[in-house]
């Protein structure tokens, strides 16, 4: 069982040096010392600041920036991590444009918000480089909590529980910790090793990991409930959805069609040699309109794929993906086909022939195909591969039968104050309960749920999900 001492060694063995993700450079460049100091001095130090309100983990942003400005960079990192133990990955992965930086008062005053995300990255990186240790395990309570999944929700929850004195064991289905933080964040935002380095620091408080343990396969929820004082479910969402498209059942076509989450995970963990086949791709069609679809498009452009096409079944205004991400994608040359949906995929000359049907959004919000008379000739495109970014499945099948666990709208139902499910010993947070949000939301939910678990196992809480 890898412990904090061996985690680093283990991780370096498992990560080949020539990983494909090393070809990506940071979209948002890190700040050097001078840049950070100048930027920190720009902050006007709002009181009851909008940026802090907008942060799901309520980081005291004016405080940490003031500390950078005054030369106390370690203190700045402490302020960040006290609220958000995964402050480094959030600094990389947060859509700051729509969170803290989106409401920065300087954006109103002079159109240029403070680079909060980059300052946060600067502070935490500096502190981690110095090896500063911020947190210590609380006085042992003798209680033991099992956490399923090692993504941001579980890490945040486990760290907070350990601070409160509870032992924690995290069960991870793969051989790498971090969940989507390690394997799902676009590599131009954050590489896997940043996530792993952060986990090393986070785990130094005394987190225990067990790898290649998956619920429903070699891990039983009933056994966890029996053995531990509480169980936290933080395993996020399931495998990529596969929409119904004519032709998709052919093995030849399946080999050229990938789920986007699976694809990004490969980008981040496979070697350049493993992924050599990508170099021969001329055209890739990404199906979907969310942020993962946009991430994939931008990754493909960054890797030099000449033609990247985003096919989204609704209009641009209806896209769930962020406007700023769409803007960057278009600037990078991604072609957007709105109101289109693949209706048929066939093979033609060693490539895929994808037929896109024209769609419209009906008055009731449903997507409908336009009648042939109204539609132009269906668009037919040749593509080397198709990526499906049409959502992920849930773990409803393996969880829903368990007493007290209930799903609504693809989300596991919990009490939003405590994270407790209908089962008194089972708690949950992150994508599993919110349907798929940002890393920072998962961190916030993980921490809040740790308090809920603490109260429950210390006997202060008895009510389940409402």
């Amino acid at each position, binding site marked *: 069982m890898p412990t904090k001492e061996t985690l680093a060694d283990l991780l370096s063995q498992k990560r080949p040096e020539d990983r494909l993700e090393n070809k990506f450079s940071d979209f948002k460049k890190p700040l050097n010392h001078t840049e950070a100091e*100048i930027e920190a*001095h*720009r902050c*006007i*130090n*709002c*009181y*009851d*600041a*909008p*940026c802090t*309100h*907008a942060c799901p983990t309520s980081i005291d942003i004016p405080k940490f920036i003031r500390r950078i*400005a005054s030369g106390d960079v370690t203190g700045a990192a402490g302020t960040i991590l006290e609220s958000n133990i995964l402050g480094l990955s959030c600094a990389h992965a947060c859509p700051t444009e729509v969170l803290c930086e*989106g*409401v920065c*008062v300087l954006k*109103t*005053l002079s159109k240029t918000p403070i680079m909060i995300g980059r300052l946060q990255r600067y502070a935490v990186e500096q502190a981690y480089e110095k090896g500063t240790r911020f947190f210590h395990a609380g006085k042992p309570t003798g209680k033991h909590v099992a956490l399923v999944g090692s993504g941001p929700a579980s890490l945040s929850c486990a760290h907070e529980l350990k601070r409160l004195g509870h032992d924690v064991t995290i069960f991870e289905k793969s051989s790498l910790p971090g969940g989507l933080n390690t394997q799902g964040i676009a590599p131009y935002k954050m590489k896997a090793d940043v996530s792993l380095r952060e986990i090393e620091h986070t785990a130094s408080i005394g987190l225990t990991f067990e790898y290649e343990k998956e619920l429903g396969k070699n891990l039983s929820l009933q056994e966890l409930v029996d053995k531990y004082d509480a169980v936290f479910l933080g395993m996020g969402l399931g495998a990529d959805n596969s929409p119904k498209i004519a032709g998709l059942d052919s093995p030849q076509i399946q080999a050229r069609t990938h789920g986007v989450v699976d694809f990004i995970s490969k980008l981040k963990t496979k070697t350049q040699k493993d992924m050599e086949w990508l170099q021969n791709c001329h055209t890739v069609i990404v199906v979907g309109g969310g942020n993962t679809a946009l991430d994939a498009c931008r990754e493909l452009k960054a890797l030099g794929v000449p033609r990247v096409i985003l096919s989204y079944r609704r209009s641009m205004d209806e896209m769930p993906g962020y406007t700023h991400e769409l803007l960057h994608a278009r600037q990078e040359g991604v072609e957007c086909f709105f109101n289109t949906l693949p209706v048929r995929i066939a093979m033609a000359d060693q490539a895929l022939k994808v037929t896109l049907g024209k769609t419209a959004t009906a008055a009731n919000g449903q997507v409908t195909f336009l009648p042939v008379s109204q539609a132009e000739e269906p668009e037919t495109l040749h593509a080397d591969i198709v990526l499906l970014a049409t959502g992920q499945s849930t773990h409803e099948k393996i969880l829903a039968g368990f007493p007290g666990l209930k799903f609504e709208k693809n989300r596991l139902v919990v009490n939003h104050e405590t994270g407790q499910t209908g089962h008194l010993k089972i708690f949950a947070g992150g994508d599993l309960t919110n349907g798929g949000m940002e890393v920072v939301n998962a961190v916030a939910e993980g921490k809040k749920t740790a308090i809920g678990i603490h109260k429950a196992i210390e006997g202060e809480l008895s009510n389940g999900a409402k």
Partner: protein
Amino acid sequence: MNFAGIYSPNPFWLASAPPTNTGEQVERAFEAGWGGAVWKTIGRPIQNVTSRFGAIDFANKKLMGFNNIELISDRPTETNLREMVEVKKRYPKHALIASLMVETKEEWRELIKQVEDAGCDGIELNFGCPHGMCERGMGSAVGQEPNILEMITGWAKEYARIPVIVKLTPNITDITIPAEAARSSGADAVSLINTIKSIISVDVNSFAPTPTVNGKGTNGGYCGPAVKPIAMHMVGAIARKHGKNLPISGIGGVSTWKDAVEFMLLGAGTVQVCTAVMHYGYRIIDDLTHGMKAYMNEKGFTSVGDFIGKAVPNYTDWGSLDLTYALIADIHDESCIGCNLCVVACNDGGHQCLSLNPEYKADGHTRKAPILKEEECVGCNLCKLICPAPGAISMKQIPYEKHYHGRTYRHGVMEMSHELHQ
């Protein structure tokens, strides 16, 4: 323009300091547009130390305050005199002032004759330097002793045929006392302030004041934008007392045309600049003259005489301020950016009359403009001063309903004392 008998094409002079160390520099300054230059102080040869300067920054801005432990000119007097001749030959219409600092009467006589022969238009007596030279009984050591100041100024007036300006030190309690000593001994003008005795910073790693010379530091002379308010008070105090009878050359943190106008409104006939030039170079003179001209055009002034001293009648004692004048803050919701800085300032450092708005703007995270309890507002200005959003907070006058109607504190005191005596 004419300042105490010295002709100058404009009111902007370079103060006696490193920017006027050599003839080559002064010529470039005149070429750039400076109206006058007070040469780096000449006296007995000295040796300087390294390093010499220290600075205090404010946020991103360098040199909010500046200090030096440099002494007077370390060049041979003959070299300075020879270069003065050359400068005056090339720039006959510019004001060239010699700054002097020596000890004995004989030395003063000799040096005054030398600089007059070199063609200088005036002499500035350096009674201000607060470091190094004062330890040798010169500089601020003279400026702090009105009797000595009066005596030496008397010598200078005895020997000089050109106007004599006395440069005053701010390191005293009441600036009008040395100013009076200078005037009574016949000085043609005063210039102020010289630098303020200071320790600009302490190196927290080496535990020594800066600038540090081989592990030790000493107190230096403080100047730059941070000292302007102190200098303006002193200029204003002398102007109130002596009016136009004692011309003043204003010095202390002048960096922009507006700074210069403020000094002149308080009675300065010329201004002298050093730190801003040491920071940005002679080129700033363009902005100073252009800005002042634009201001004059806007106000309809045809010469600087139209506004020199214009604020002096409005500079009064606290006791003469109108107690019936009542202002309160006026918050303008449409310009508020929601930083709430005024709320924390008012609550912790003001009079607890601003509070957070419980309502948020459309973004859900930014509060609407703070709420003012008008009846609690004392009109102190704090919120307006710290507000970063132009136009979000102004001050408005309200009727003053209490019993001090139409009176000042002084009126009240006199009335009370009158009642007591009855």
